[in-house]
Every structure is written in structure tokens, then in C-alpha cells.
């Protein structure tokens, strides 16, 4: 039994045991996605607040669907429709949501540490659905689940991450998660997006600005989205990026036929990834989406299905045949 999760703010704070527990809990929910009737009453009467202070479609829909399939209700807050534009502080907005008594807050925000900040000020459990350029814990969990399904393990793999590492919360969460299971990393991208300090985020992290070199021996290739708004700073011509860093079928051959290709989405075909790779047999992109549901269902189940009393409820539950 893993230590009780109060919030999920980062992967860095989790133990390997807690991560393994969450992945195991996600298994029945993977199965569940194949059911005819995709509706449980497990979280009936519970409310999940979805507070998205930054535009997001897939993560928000994934959490909303996960909550709904577990029978929970959702409260939706989107930045554009919220009072944020009127200058209300994050803390006031969060307190207002909290006053409506949801059972947890799922939060996406463009500032690193925003979920941590809210969790520090409120008692309600907070799930970080992406904070600035810090972490995106559920993305790393669903990536791990996908890798484990395909390869049978997430231990001691060679993982290559390609793209804007510096500004990527997906890269950080994956480094922390897979790093706890002995994976070796090669980070690849334009040099200004590859600060040396990333080598300090894990025991076995190396950098390479040459994609051919970075793909050598890779078991898993994680392609990051190129955030076009970042290209201006520092300025890098798009064509240059495509020429040097696009994952093409030829380049994927360097990694070999067993290498998996993951992408957190939204994916821009023809920019960071060649359509032939995106649709090819090594691509796990759609499994990632389905697994995202399973992971988020497991997380909501673990965090809000059970109570907080520490009485002998387990003992009596066993007797309740």
C-alpha cells in the first residue's frame, strides 16, 4: 500500500512505489474503456472542480471525461470566462471555487508553481494538470503506462526526448518519473533549449544537439510539441527546426524497429514529426490519449473515492459480505 496521496503537484515528489501503485490502479480503468456502458457510480455525489487558467482542450476533456465516467460531477472554470480578466487574484478565485465545496481541484496554469501555491493555501486536494514550464504529472503517468503496456516494463530503458526541453513541463515530469525507474535519457534539441543544468535533474542524463546521435539505441522517443510562440525567443527559423529536428522515418530507423514514439499532443504533422511516423506502427499517440483517461480515472479514484477517517473501516469492510 502506497503512502496516502493528498495532492498531486509534481512527479518529483512521488516515490517509485507511489508511481507503481498509480499505474497498477490505472489497469482496471484501461479495461473499463472497453466496456459497453462506460459509467460508474463510484464517485457519485462527488464534485471535481476543473480550474483551467490556461487554454487546454485535451487535458481538460480528459479530466472531465474521467470524472464523468466515475460518476462525479464537474465544475468548470476556464480562464477566458472567469473573473481573472477582471483582475481577481488566483487565490481569491481558488477560494471562491473551494467555497462551492468540490472534492478536489484539477488545475492548469501558465505560471510554474501555481498549483503548489494554491495547495499551500487551501485544504482541498489539488491535482496539477500542468503548471507553466514546471511539471505535467498526469502526462508522465500516462506516458509511463503506455510504455509499460508496449514494452512490459518502464525500467532501465533508453529514452530520447526531442524538442524545446527548456520550456517543457512534459520533459521535466518524464525525466523525474522514468528516472526513478533507472531509465537513461538523451535530451535533444537546439542548444539554447538544452541548458546544461538539465543534467542535474537525473543520474543518467546527457544532451545532444544532433538528432542522429540522440536516436542511437533509443527504446522510447518522446517528441515534444514545438510551441510556435517560443520560436521567436530565441528566434529560430521554422524550416531550420524541421530540417534538423523533425522525426522522420529515416531517422527513426536509427533507433530501430522496436523503438516507441510518444507525443504529448497536440501534434503538428510536418513540423516536429513526419506524418508517416505519427501514423506508423511505432507511434503510440492514440494509446496515450486512451491511457490518459485511465490514469486520470485512477487518480481521481485514489484521491477522492476513499474517506479520511483512520478507524477500523477496513476491518469491517472485509466482514461486509
Amino acid at each position, binding site marked *: 500500500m502506497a503512502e496516502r496521496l493528498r495532492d498531486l503537484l509534481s512527479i*518529483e515528489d512521488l516515490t517509485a512505489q507511489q508511481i507503481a501503485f498509480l499505474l497498477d490502479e490505472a489497469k482496471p480503468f484501461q479495461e473499463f474503456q472497453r466496456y459497453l456502458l462506460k459509467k460508474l457510480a463510484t464517485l457519485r455525489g462527488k464534485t471535481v472542480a476543473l480550474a483551467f487558467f490556461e487554454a487546454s482542450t485535451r487535458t481538460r476533456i480528459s479530466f472531465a471525461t474521467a470524472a464523468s465516467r466515475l460518476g462525479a460531477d464537474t465544475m468548470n472554470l476556464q480562464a477566458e470566462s472567469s473573473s481573472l480578466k477582471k483582475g481577481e*487574484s*488566483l*487565490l481569491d478565485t481558488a477560494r471562491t471555487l473551494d467555497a462551492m465545496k468540490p472534492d478536489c481541484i484539477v488545475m492548469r*496554469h501558465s*505560471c*510554474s*508553481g*501555481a498549483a*503548489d*501555491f494554491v495547495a*499551500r*493555501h487551501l485544504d482541498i486536494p489539488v491535482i496539477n494538470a500542468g*503548471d*507553466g*514550464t*514546471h*511539471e505535467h504529472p498526469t502526462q508522465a503517468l500516462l506516458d509511463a503506462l503506455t510504455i509499460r503496456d508496449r514494452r512490459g516494463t518502464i525500467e532501465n530503458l533508453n529514452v530520447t526526448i526531442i524538442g524545446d526541453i*527548456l520550456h517543457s*513541463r512534459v520533459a*521535466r515530469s518524464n525525466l523525474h518519473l522514468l528516472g526513478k525507474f533507472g531509465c537513461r535519457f538523451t535530451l535533444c534539441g537546439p542548444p539554447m533549449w538544452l*541548458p546544461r*543544468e*538539465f543534467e*542535474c*535533474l537525473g543520474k543518467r542524463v546527457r544532451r545532444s544537439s544532433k538528432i542522429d546521435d540522440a536516436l542511437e539505441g533509443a527504446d522510447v522517443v518522446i517528441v515534444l510539441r514545438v510551441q510556435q510562440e517560443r520560436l521567436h525567443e530565441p528566434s529560430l527559423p521554422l524550416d531550420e527546426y524541421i530540417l534538423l529536428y523533425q522525426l522522420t522515418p529515416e531517422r527513426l530507423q536509427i533507433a530501430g524497429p522496436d523503438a516507441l514514439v510518444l507525443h504529448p499532443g497536440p501534434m503538428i504533422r510536418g513540423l516536429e514529426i513526419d506524418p508517416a511516423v505519427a501514423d506508423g506502427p511505432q507511434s503510440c499517440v492514440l494509446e496515450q490519449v486512451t491511457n490518459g483517461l485511465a490514469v486520470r480515472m485512477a487518480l481521481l479514484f485514489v484521491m477522492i473515492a476513499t474517506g479520511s477517517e483512520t478507524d477500523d473501516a477496513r476491518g469491517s469492510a472485509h466482514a461486509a459480505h
Partner: protein
Amino acid sequence: MLLIKNGRVIDPSSGTDAKRNIWIDRGRVTRIAPAEGPEAPPNGEALDATGLVVAPGFIDLHCHLREPGGESSETIETGTRAAARGGFTAVCPMPNTRPVNDNASVTRAILERAAAVASTHVWPIGAASLGSRGESLAEIGAMQKAGIVAVSDDGRPIPSAKLLRQVMDYCRELDLPVIDHCEDTSLFAGAVMREGRQSVRLGLRGMPAAAESIAVGRDIQVTELTGCRFHVAHLSSQASLDLVRAGKKRGLRVSCEVTPHHFTLCDEDVVYDARFKMNPPLASKEDRAALIEGLADGTVDAIATDHAPHEAATKEVEFDLAPFGITGFETALALALELVRAGKLSLLRLVELFTTGPARVLGRKRSIAPGEPADLTVFSTDHLWTFEVNQSASRSGNTPFDGRKFRGAPMFTIVAGRIAYRRGE
């Protein structure tokens, strides 16, 4: 009449470190004599300083009192009360008030207000450029007549070498020091902490140390060109320190200050709490070690607080959105004493850094001698206490040192012969 008896007088100006009695009358020191059981003066009070250090009055070269314009976070009254609690007898508020202190009428308004309500002397610093906008010179001469002690656009660097040269040419003739907030803003853009392992880990935008030292290098060359006195505000890196050290060696009139938070904390201490957000940001461990070395070897001239109060609501936001700065008056001495206890700084150097050091930056003298103004700081090196921000005299509580346990504290702060602060009151 006031008698301070039995104290250990440490006066760097004369090299004194001995037990003395000090008599004070009409705001001045009248007599100093070896301690041997004197009686209380017939018409005054005797303060027992047995076991305490008696130093010249502490000067803070760098603070923000927020008045006029920012009274919700601090006023001259509350700020100087906090300063007196921290042992300071004189503080130099930066000109970034609203309106900016860039002309004589603002300077006079600050000084009039200070005369009415301040617990300490207030020595204002005037803006170098109009509105601190970095475009054209402020009314520096007029402000000097009104009472400013230095010029600076603190909060912002002086943007161009050309403007800096004009300011320095001008101030050389007025014999005013020019204080620059050294920063290459193009490298700083959007940063909220020092660039390094921790900024990468937290996903916070980092500024490299070079953003400061590039500007320090430029400023020292302009100093060489103009012959002006130049002071680096809140210096925070080894590279900047090396430039100052080399400048001093060449005989330039260059000085610098270091804040208590920069010699106490480092970037690894940063968490998602805006009480760890200041500019310059907390430096690397290596830089911190270099700063401490500079404090000890004399390269650093002064410890300055950069006391920057912000009302709670503005700091209780996302790290990226919070304003820079922390309060510092009440913890400065206690943090410096931590260095003394760790054997990294002598007590004499500590006293220098709070007294004769900053005085010299301003072209002033600071000593305990008959006829001199009776500005004295009496402190304990042993007193155990815990800093509780809700007990602070400042109107703001934005400090990472809330709850820190300290050994050593100011016991009496004497400003112009009057007891401005007495511990326990």
C-alpha cells in the same frame, strides 16, 4: 543627559575595542572614559551596557520607505521604526516613490515628514534621471541643496553608457556618489530568479549572473572615464565582485554593498513562495561564498538591507506575477552575526560594514568621539530571540526569515542622543 555605562565600545574609525562609559548631552557625545562604576547623571538616565557592544550608529545605504505614494505597504514612520528596531540610526530611502524623488520639492517633502515622524535620520537618495526613466538628468543640484546624499535610479539600471557618463560628470563636480542598480535588462527579461539548476528544476525563468556583471563592467569603465564616485547597489555575484576589486586596485573610487539575504540564502533555497523573489535574485552557492569573502576582506564596503516592503496581497500571488523585494531592517544585524559566529567575519568588520563603511561611501565620517553626534547602536551578541513577522514594526511582512531563531540583537538604538528603540518595549 544620558550615560551608557560598561559597554564594549567598538569604533572602527579609531580602532577602539574597550570597555568605556559614554556621556551624552544635547544630542552629542560629551565624554568617553574607561568604565569604573560611575553614578547615573543627576538629571538623566543611565543605560547599563554590561556585556553589550556599543558601536557607532548603523547606516543603511539602501531601503524603500514607500512614502510618498506607497503608504499601504510602508510609511516613513513605520519604516524608520522598523529600522530603529534593527539598530539603524540613519537610512537612505531610494527615490522610486510615487512621485519619484527627482526634484527638490519631493526631497523636501520627505525630509519634512521625516523630521515630524521618523525614528531615525532619513538621508534620501535622489533620482539620477527624470522620473528614473533613464532619458534625461534629474534636478540633481537642487536636490543636493535640499538634502539628498547620493543619486540612483534604483529598481532600474541606468540604461545607456551615454546617460551614465552625463550623470557621473555632473555628480563628480557635486561630489555625490552615483549608485547604480547594475543589470543588463536584455539578459534579465522576464526572469524571476537566478539561472541555474534550481531555475531549471522549478521551471522558473532564470537570469544569468552575467546580467549583473556586464553592467558592473560598463559602469566601472565609465567611472574611469569620468573620475566620479560609483557605488554598486546590492552586488550579488563573484564576477561583479572581481570587477569591483580590480577597480579599487586601480585606484578608482568604486564601492559596493551586499544585502543580508544574499550572504545568507542562495538560489537552492527558492521555493514557489514570493518571499524568495527579489532583484537581484538569490545567487548560487559559489557566489554566496564569494560575497562572504568580499565582506571579510574589505572589497565590500557596506551591508545594506534593500528593505523592500510589499503589502501581503501583492506578494500572495503566482511567483511569476509577484513584485521583487523583501523587508530587511529587523533581521540585518542578526543575520550578519551568524557570519561572525560561523567564524567568517570578525566583529570589528561587522561593525565597519554597518557604520564607517557606508559612511565612507557617502563621503562622511562615523565615529564615537566627544563633539560627534550621539548616534549609537548598542547590541548583544548573545541575546536569543525568534523573529516573528507579526511583531514587526514594518507595515509589510514579506520576508523569508519569519520564524527564524537568532542569537544577537540590537538592544538600544540612540539617534541624536535620544533612545529611538529599547529592546523589550
